[in-house]
């Protein structure tokens, strides 16, 4: 199932002023897992600073630690070395100012679309009526108003992912952490979701960290692309190999020669990173 590309409902009134709460700072960050066969260094010495409102994509071969970094920022895992700060405050646990979009959506199957979206605001003690209004607004933004009373199990993957995005946006997060959010979607749905995400990023002013295996997706969406390499299975901890700024002006065209040039440059870095340090 695919949805029509153009379902841009309402546009977002920028709820959020781009401010320092969206700044992400990683300094010398490392993560060591204790496993049965001894300690495993998943990532090491990661330095990265992301400006408020910036869109950063993270690419790299499987096992190089992309999810690990994202989960540390989300507060699901504790880093074992270095400094991790969001909005100038050290990250210790999950929190609503860091919204997470999972590849497998993570929607509550026993709640309707509307109830899923107002879950966050309700947890944060927003009044019932205000939370309802806010949920309706974000459901409209992702074009699912007609499906507000459906259960997640009754929706296609693309629609479920839109619900998941509306659900975190309704919490007005300073940072959006997305781990291969469109990885399970078909190509057509994926393209339409990329357009929507681009629009939502501009309109909400949230900082976005997007992990993806699609270099095209990374170049289409990001201000900078972080290329990671290594990984525990290579004997070298995962690390940042290079950060490539994407300076394409105006509306990005995935078929334009300058777009393809950036893509090739990043692909070369990704492939060189496989096997070697």
């Amino acid at each position, binding site marked *: 199932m695919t949805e029509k590309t153009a379902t841009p409902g309402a546009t977002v009134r920028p709820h959020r002023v781009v401010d320092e709460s969206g700044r992400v700072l990683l300094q010398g960050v490392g993560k060591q897992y204790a496993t049965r066969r001894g300690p495993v260094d998943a990532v090491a010495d990661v330095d990265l600073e992301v400006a408020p409102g910036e869109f950063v994509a993270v690419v790299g071969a499987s096992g190089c630690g992309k999810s690990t970094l994202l989960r540390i920022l*989300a*507060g*699901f895992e504790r880093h074992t070395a270095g400094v991790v700060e969001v909005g100038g405050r050290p990250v210790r*646990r*999950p*929190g*609503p100012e*860091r*919204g*997470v979009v*999972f590849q*497998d959506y*993570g*929607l*509550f*199957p*026993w709640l309707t679309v509307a109830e899923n979206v107002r*879950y*966050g605001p309700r*947890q*944060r003690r927003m009044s019932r009526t205000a939370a309802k209004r806010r949920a309706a607004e974000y459901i409209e933004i992702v074009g699912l108003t007609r499906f507000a009373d459906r*259960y997640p*199990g009754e929706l296609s993957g693309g629609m479920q992912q839109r619900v998941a995005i509306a*659900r*975190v946006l309704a*919490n007005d997060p300073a940072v959006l952490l997305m781990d291969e959010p469109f990885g399970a979607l078909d190509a057509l749905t994926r393209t339409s979701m990329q357009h929507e995400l681009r629009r939502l990023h501009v309109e909400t002013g949230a900082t976005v960290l997007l992990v993806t295996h699609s270099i095209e997706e990374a170049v289409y969406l990001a201000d900078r692309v972080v290329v990671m390499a290594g990984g525990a299975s290579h004997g070298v901890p995962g690390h940042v190999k290079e950060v490539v700024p994407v300076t394409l002006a105006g509306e990005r065209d995935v078929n334009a020669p300058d777009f393809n040039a950036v893509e090739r440059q990043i692909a070369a870095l990704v492939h060189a990173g496989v096997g070697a340090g």
Partner: protein
Amino acid sequence: MSRWGPAAGRFALGAGFIAFILLMWDLGVRGEWVLLFDIKMGFLPPPVDVAKLLWDFAFGGVYDDAFSGSLWGHLGASSLRVLAGFGLAAALAIPLGVLMGRFPLVLATLDPAVNLFRPIPATAWVPLVLLIIGFGSQATIFLITISAFFPILLNTLSATREVSPRLVEAALMLGTRPIGVLLKVVVPAATPGIVSGLRIGLGLAWVILVLGESNGIDTGLGSMIMLAREQVRTDRIVVGMIVIGVAGYLSDRLLVLGLKGAFGRRPLVRAS
């Protein structure tokens, strides 16, 4: 038309098979068949007599003895015991199962004891229970409680442990406090498994009921069956068995329909 076609067909198959059993039963009684296990069909009452007695048991007016019209009193007493024992078991087992499934310390503390007590069958409890509780309703309710407790506990425990960590992460990143996760996420996510445990527990409650009511109780379907045995009345025994079977079936339907009514369209009960 085609909507009820297949359903009606299935119903006809099921009803037809029951009719077949009744026919075989009737033939067997008349022909005094001796089956496997040395079952002497000649000792059974024929189905028509049982139907007549069942009617009398429910509404009276056929034989007009002490048995006539006494079904509702027995059924009421038995249902109350089932309800009390099952309710108590559920009230203890669900919270305990959730805590064991979520907190490794609770699991480590309780798991060995649970595994020691679980294999002890209710029949083995009876002599002890009669000595330390004594004959009566309380002993029956106790036996039902311990029997229904374990299936509810174990189903709740495994359903709780199988709750996707993703849902817990989702709740936390949306601002749920760690204690809130238990009621907001773990319980609803585990509900289909908990309901399965409740259904097994309720079914078992009716099984154990007869065992409990076999001793020193004068109202209840189990005591009625035991009395019929002393009187060598196979027809009354069969009537009692049928009533217990139907009551057990109806209570399961009632439980499922009640929960579905409470949950509405929410996908919280497995299709059945």
